[in-house]
């Protein structure tokens, strides 16, 4: 049970719950250096595999977020004349 997909989904849900309304926690999830500590605050007993999996998924979310960030920067600054 502690390695199954359902358990993993629960971990993610708890991280999401914690992140909502806690920008500092979200920022720690974004930064690689602070991410592991932030995750362990919510789930102290994660295995190495589970941690790696969470890292990979959060990296994907960060990568997609960066694409959003570039679009937002473009919309705010360039306007039509480029």
């Amino acid at each position: 049970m502690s390695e199954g997909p359902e358990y993993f989904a629960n971990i993610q849900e708890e991280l999401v719950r914690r992140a909502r309304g806690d920008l500092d926690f979200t920022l720690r999830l974004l930064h690689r250096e602070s991410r592991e500590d932030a995750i362990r605050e919510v789930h102290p007993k994660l295995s190495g595999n589970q941690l790696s999996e969470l890292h990979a998924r959060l990296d994907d979310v960060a990568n997609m977020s960066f694409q959003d960030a570039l679009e937002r920067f473009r919309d705010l600054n360039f306007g039509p004349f480029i």
Partner: protein
Amino acid sequence: MIDRREIRSHVDGHLSTARGNMLPRVRTAFDRLTRKHGLLTTDLNPYFPVLGHPLFELPIWVAERLRTAGIHTSEQQLADILGVSALGYLHVRAQDDWLDEASRQDPTLLGLAEALLASCHGLLISTVGTSGRFWDFHVGVINSYAESLLHTAELRTTGAKITREDFEQMLAQSRPLVIPSAALLDRANCWQFLPRLEGFIFATTAAIQLLNDLTDLYRDRRLGQRTWVIETVGESGADRLWLDVLRSACGGTGSGVQEVIENSLQFHDRSAAIAEDLGLTAAESWLAERRAILTNLFNPLKEHLLFAFSQRISEGEFH
């Protein structure tokens, strides 16, 4: 100096006149194009984007420079030149949109480009008349624009890497931006300013095109379109750019994104030096604002990244 509301009023006046001369099909396409570019609206912002081309500012700066040399440009002449800027720019955009569109069988945008060019020429004649000097220059500019357009299309089909040299050649597509100001210089008999003015436009455009290509990086990669920015950032690190931005915002160095921004800053500084040499004092605050944005770019990018990340996480978007 003429203010932004007056500029918009002159631009809109000429766009409305051009629209009035169009027949129904072309007019419908014109309405679509102006809507897309935010023109003929009450909102001033689309006319003066922070990092866009100084489409309507540049002729004003040039007229101001001429004024300091004792040469007066009447409001009517300035209004006509602003009309040239708007119509000439939309002419290029119409062609560009046609090239970008999947269905090139539809000639609507080409028809619109023809109509816009005719209106633009009508206004130019009111300023420069039959000046051989101006019209010879105009022919040269439009030809190098056309050549650059074809060169770019060719590069895209070969899939070859885009070098700095290619990037600079592609920028010939922005040469028509000089036409309105060249008309003012011709009328004032100050043609000697022209090469430096072209240098200024080249450098400002290069600086901003690099940032624009950076913001389009993922889209361009998806569409298989290559840019100098893609080469600079590198293929392998593309999904790690967010890490580069976070590190750079904290003072880190050596990332591909940083290299793009440094290249952009170099072009910007070149444009500022040319403006100073030309005595384009009216451009100083615009240039300073631009430099401030370029030197501080990682902070807003980091803020937008955190905002988007927070949103995606809050929505439970783990994959």
